[in-house]
C-alpha cells in the first residue's frame, strides 16, 4: 500500500436492479508487490469464492476424511478441472471483451475429431505426434476466426453467431467422424499428454500454464488492457485509437486456440476423438467464468476468479461422488450452492468497501 490515499474505493452508484457488482478494489500497488502480496490481493478480491471453496473442502474432509484430503484425490479434482479450466480461461477473455461464446463445446468436439481422423493419425505415426497437436490447434483457431469475423466484421450478436457455430461445428464433427468414436493409436501422443511429470499430471501442468499465461496477458499486457477497454466501452475504446474489431476477432481466435488445447487434453485423457466430446461445456464454462466475478456484460474479468469457479464446480462433484449422493439431490444442492456462493461473494465484497 504505497499510496497514502484512503479515498480510493469502488463504485457505490446504487446499482438499480439486476446486476450484481463484485468488489472493485483498485489495483493498489500492482507495481510493488511480490507473489505473496499478489496472492493476498487475489484472495481478497475473491474472498467469497475462496470461502465457498474452503467450505466445500471442509465438507469434503468431514464426510470423506482421508479419501478427500488425499493427494491422489486432489490430483483427480485438478485433472477433472483441467479441460474445462482451459476453456474457461479463454472464455474469460471473450466475456471480458464484451462477447460470449456458446460454441466452445462444439469446437472442442470438432478439434478432437479432426485431430484423430485416420488420415491425421497415419501422418502423425509416420512423422510426429505434433501433427495432431497442430491439427487441433488449427481447427480451434479456425473456428474462433470464423466466430470472430462474424461478430466483429459481420456484426452478428455474439450469442447468435456462436450459436450458429455450435450447430455447424457439431454437425461437421458428426459428419467427419460419421458419428463413430475415433480411437487414438498414436502412442507417442498419449504417452506425452497423459503422463505425469514429477508426480503431477501433464494435464494439470497445462492447465496451470494456461491459467498463468492468461493471468499475465490479462493483467500485465497491452492486449489485456485493450480487452478490458473494448469490453467496457467499445465506442470509447475505438475513439481512443484501439482497433476494436480486430481486437474482438483476436479474442475469439484466442478462445478457439484454448478449445483446441482442451480438445488435445480430452483426446489424451479419453484416448478418443468424438463428436460428443465437450457437450454442454458452454454452460459449465460460462458458469465458472461468471461465478468467478467476470462481468457478463464485459469490461471486467478475473482469471483467478475463473479458476476458483472451475475448482468450486469440480470439487463439488468430487465431494458428491465421495458421498454417494443421488443425482437429483445433487442437482438441487448444486443450485443452492451456486446461489449461496454468489451471495457470499457479494456480501463479503460489500463489507470490504
Amino acid at each position, binding site marked *: 500500500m504505497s*499510496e497514502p*490515499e*484512503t*479515498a*480510493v*474505493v*469502488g*463504485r*457505490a*452508484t*446504487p446499482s438499480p436492479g439486476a446486476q450484481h457488482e463484485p468488489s*472493485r478494489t*483498485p*489495483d*493498489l500497488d*500492482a*507495481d510493488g508487490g511480490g507473489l505473496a502480496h499478489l496472492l493476498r490481493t487475489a484472495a481478497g478480491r475473491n474472498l467469497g469464492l475462496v470461502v465457498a471453496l474452503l467450505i466445500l473442502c471442509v465438507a469434503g474432509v468431514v464426510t470423506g476424511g482421508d479419501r478427500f484430503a488425499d493427494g491422489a484425490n486432489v490430483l483427480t479434482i485438478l485433472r477433472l478441472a483441467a479441460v474445462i479450466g482451459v476453456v474457461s480461461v479463454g472464455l474469460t477473455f471473450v466475456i471480458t471483451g464484451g462477447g460470449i461464446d456458446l460454441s466452445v463445446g462444439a469446437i472442442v468436439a470438432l478439434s478432437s475429431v479432426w485431430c484423430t481422423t485416420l488420415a491425421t493419425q497415419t501422418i502423425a505415426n509416420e512423422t510426429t505426434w505434433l501433427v495432431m497437436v497442430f491439427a487441433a490447434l488449427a481447427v480451434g483457431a479456425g473456428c474462433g476466426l470464423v466466430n470472430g469475423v462474424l461478430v466483429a466484421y459481420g456484426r452478428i450478436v455474439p450469442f447468435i453467431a456462436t450459436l450458429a457455430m455450435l450447430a455447424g461445428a457439431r454437425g461437421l464433427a458428426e459428419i467427419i467422424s460419421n458419428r463413430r468414436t475415433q480411437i487414438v493409436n498414436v502412442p507417442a501422443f498419449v504417452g506425452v499428454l497423459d503422463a505425469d511429470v514429477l508426480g503431477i499430471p501433464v494435464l494439470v501442468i497445462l492447465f496451470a500454464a494456461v491459467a498463468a499465461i492468461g493471468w*499475465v496477458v490479462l493483467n*500485465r*499486457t*497491452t*492486449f489485456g*488492457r*485493450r480487452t*478490458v*477497454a473494448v469490453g*467496457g*466501452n467499445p*465506442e*470509447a*475504446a*475505438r*475513439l*481512443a*485509437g*484501439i*482497433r476494436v474489431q480486430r481486437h474482438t476477432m483476436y479474442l475469439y481466435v484466442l478462445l478457439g486456440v484454448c478449445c483446441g488445447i482442451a480438445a488435445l487434453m480430452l483426446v489424451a485423457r479419453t484416448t478418443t476423438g468424438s463428436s460428443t466430446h465437450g457437450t454442454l461445456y458452454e454452460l459449465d464454462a460460462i458458469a465458472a467464468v461468471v461465478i468467478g466475478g467476470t462481468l457478463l456484460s464485459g*469490461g*471486467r474479468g478475473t482469471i483467478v476468479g475463473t479458476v476458483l469457479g472451475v475448482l468450486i464446480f469440480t470439487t463439488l462433484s468430487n465431494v458428491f461422488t465421495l458421498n454417494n449422493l443421488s443425482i437429483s439431490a445433487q442437482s438441487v444442492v448444486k443450485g443452492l450452492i451456486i446461489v449461496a456462493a454468489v451471495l457470499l461473494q457479494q456480501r463479503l465484497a460489500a463489507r470490504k*468497501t
Partner: protein
Amino acid sequence: MTTAPTTPYEPVPSEDAPPLLQMRGILKRFPGVLALGGVDLTVRAAEVHCLLGQNGAGKSTLIKVLSGSYQPDGGEIRWEGRPVSFPSPVGAIKVGISTIYQELDLVADLSVTENIFLGHELSTAGFTRRGQAGARARELLARMGHAGIGVHRLVGSLSPASQQIVSMARALSHDTRLLVLDEPSAVLDSGEVANLFRVVRGLVAQGVAVVYISHRLEEIRQIGDRITVLKDGTSVATDLPVSETPTRELIRLMTGRSIEYVFPPRPQEPAALTTAAPVLEVDALARRGLFSPVSFAVHAGEILGLAGLVGAGRSEVLETLYGARRATSGSVRVNGRTMPNGSVAARVAAGVGLCPEERKSQGLLLDESVTANVTVSSLQRFSRAGFLDHHAERVAAREVTASLDVRPAGVDRAVRTLSGGNQQKVVLARWLLRGCKVLLLDEPTRGVDIGARTEIYTLIRALADSGVAVVVVSSEVEEVLGLADRVLVMREGAVVHEAPASALDEAQVLDLVMEGAPA
C-alpha cells in the same frame, strides 16, 4: 394533473409562511469521499435559485438527495415547513419536485411521448392512451417552442439538444412545484438557452420554484434571483441576491481565489503560421446526409474554431475527419500523409486526438481507473514487448492529471466517481500524455467550472504554442471567438463563412449561424 394553474401566482403575503424547501446540514458520504459535508439550501416559491460551485463541489449530489435518488447520511429536508424524506424518486415526484439530471435520463428505445410520461403514463386500466398522450406531449413541446420534435420519434434518434428538451417536457408533465435543472444549458446553444429561459420565466410566473445549476455566470445573471454557493461539499454562502452580488465575489466564493475570466493572448504574428505547411488538411470532405464538402487546413500552432448551432454538423465533421465515421468523399491529410477512410487507429498513430462530445459514452471507460483512461492511447509507451509497466503508467498519469488539477487526485479511482468537469479533464489528459500533433476538441468546456475552464483555455493555447494544431467545436460563440485564431461558421451541414477570429464579433457570428434558419 399536469399543467400548472392558469392564474398568475400571487405571492403569499404572510411573513411566517415557511419556505417551499429547506435543506439543512445535508451529509452524503461515498466510499472514501465526503461528497456533502453539511449543506444548507432554502428555496422559496416563484424564485429561481441558482446553485453555484466548482466541478465536484457537490451540486449534482445535493439535487440527487433532494430528488430521492440518493439517501442522505444526515441532515434534514423540510417541504413547506414539514420534515420529509424521500426513500425513492417516487416520493419527491409526488410532492411536486421534478428533476432534470445532469446526465440525460431517457430511454433510447421509447418514443418522445413515452419518455415524457414514463412512470406516470396516461392509461386506462393499464392500457396506454396513446392518442391523448401524444396530443399532450405535442402540447408540452409546443409550449417550450419545440413543436417540431416528432412525438413518435424514438428518443435515441434525437440530437442531444432535442433530448434535453424532452427531459424538460417530462419535468413539465408533472404537476411541478419545484423544478430542478442540473446544467440544462450544457448541450444548448444561445438560441436554445433563450428559449429555455422563456419557459422558466413562464413557470415562475405561475408560482413554480426553480433550482438552476450552471457554470455560465452570465446565465445566472439573466435568470437567477438568489444564489447558494457550494465549495468542497459545504454551502459557503446562501441566499445571495443575484442583483447585488458581483461576479468577482461569486468566483471568489466558489474557488477561494479571484480569477480573471479571460482567454489567453493569441501569439503575436498569426500571419506567420499560414506560411508553413499545414499539419491537418481537409479536402472536400463530405458525408452524404450529414454535411456537404468541407475544406480547410490547420497549421501547427493554430487554433481553428468551428461555430454553429446545435445540429449544424460540426461534430460530424470532426468525427469524420477523425475516421470515426466513413466519409462519402474527400480526403484528410496529416503532415502530408493521406489518412485511410474510416480508420481512427491510423489517425491516432499519426498523432491526431479527439475529445468527443459525449464524454461518458464516447470518451471514458467509466469503470476503469483514471490511470487506465489516461494511458489507453499511449499503451505502447508503457510497454515492452507487450508487457505493461504499471508503475511508469501510474507515475505518468499522476503527473499529467496533477498538471490539469484533476480532483480528487487519486489515479486509482474509478473515473465514474469523478464529477463531470473532472471527467472532461481526464479525457484531455489522455491526449496531453500522448502528445498530439492535431487535437480535435468537441465542446471541451461543456460542464466545466469557471476556474477549470480558464485552465483549459490556457492549456489549449499552450498546446498550440507548442506546435499542436487544434480544432475546437463549441456552441458558445464567445468561447470560439475568444479562443480560436480562425473561425469557420457552419450552418445546416455546410461552411458558410471563414474569417480570422479577430475580424468577427458575437453578433456577426450569431447572424451567420441563424441566417435563414426558421425562426
